[in-house]
């Protein structure tokens, strides 16, 4: 059950489908570009505390599965 103790905004709920579509295109092209750069060896090592959105969690089975796929 969700407690709607504040109004999430109807427009904001509806708009997310469009936002997600745009985000999907952006991420797809970003990944494609990443692969092109990787192919030509143009990748730079980035060093930032907030480099990745994913939390480095060793017990996380999802990441382990991804590892197996590789």
């Amino acid at each position: 059950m969700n407690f709607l103790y504040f109004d999430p905004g109807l427009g904001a709920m509806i708009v997310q489908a469009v936002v997600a579509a745009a985000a999907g295109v952006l991420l797809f092209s970003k990944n494609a570009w990443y692969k092109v750069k990787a192919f030509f060896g143009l990748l730079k090592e980035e060093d930032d505390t907030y480099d990745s959105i994913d939390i480095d969690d060793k017990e996380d089975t999802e990441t382990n599965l991804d590892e197996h796929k590789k």
Partner: protein
Amino acid sequence: MSTKNNTATTLAGVHEASFRDPSGYMFYDGDTLRRVINPIYFPQYNKLKESGFFKTLIKQGLLIPHTETSVADDKIVITPEPIPFITNPYEWSFQQYKHAALHTLRLQKYALSNGFILKDASAYNVTFHKGKPVFIDTLSFDFYEEGTPWRAYKQFITHFFGPLVLAKYHGTDIFKMLQTHIDGIPVKLISSMLPGKTKLSATIHTNIHLLAKMESKHSEDYKAETKVARLSKKQQSNILESLFNFIKKLELNESTEWGNYYDKTNYEAAAFEGKKKLIREWVTPLTPQRLIDVGGNDGTFARTVLDTVPDVLVTDIDSNAVDYNYTQVQENKETNMLPFVCDVLQPAPGIGFNNTERNSLIERLKEYNPDITMALALIHHITLSGNVPFVKSAEFFAKFSGTLIIEFPKREDSWVESLLVRKREFMNHFDFYNETNFETGYNQFFTIEKKETVPGTKRVLYLLKRK
């Protein structure tokens, strides 16, 4: 913890910042801040606990650690790790704000992959502790319902994404707007303040301009009749990732690289080192547990005693200096230094319902109760730029400082000279600016324990004790 702050609590001891969420509330048990969880939130809490979700987040330093104090049918009480000083979004530098935003997105992404969501994305749920942002609202997680959009999405835009994008174009003063808009800057206002070219950015266009349009369009749906669109987990995760990538790369347009103020000081390197030595000599024997350096710039002088003081705050009016300080905190992995933005002439007020949801700076400093307050190279700015009489600034410091180390630059100091010259025809209105009047003013609230000229300068360092 220091003494309980009465203004932040009601008679029952309930903390004034936590009344909105029906899941539970914070209260003072003596001096200890605890959290009550209401039965309505038991299913979530138990699942978060049993699945190891809390454990992972706490282990990773992403969520404030807590211990379970008592469990009963009508309430569960948990005790979170105390945080000595809470900074609010309008007191953060650009990098701090950015990191708080990225932190929130990370949590939501992780929550989503574990079948939970962040039910709110308020910037007040994040604060800085031990050198890093940390999420402090343990009850903000809820179950994820398959196919539902993120309920806190708009809140994330008004609290984080909007202010950050606005800061890019208008500077970090924008963050102060959070003082007048406790639930974030309205989307329509964000949209109207952004330059037209931002419509060309797919991320800004959809997340702000389109959102503003949709919000206006659906604002009259009083009966909640319109069907809410469905959104797959993958789609939602795309939104989060795309916002994350965008914010990560966000920089200020007028990125005035921290110009290193100390290159522009009016005294020699030897005098600079002399001042550092003097401060260390005065501070160390007092073995302070908490210290605040007001107008402390990038933390250079506070760092001279950082190894001996368990908790140090450094404030400055210059967001760039605070940013530079924060970068150093991160690089050096310092856990006892907290930089934040503060204008002494206009300290953060108490805001929100009853003016008590977020405490004023002075209330928080009283509660923090520093053993030593340092105010170096600050009094001439307060007095000459701010036109604040000595006795008034003494009153300000006396509100929260038992011991005050204050530097007084004499009239002959070149910075003072320059400030005086800028007064032009009103220059003689500031004839009172001298050592004797300074001492008379401060004597109303403090007694002088030590007084020494910083070698090689026209500045005097005082050690004062509150009367």
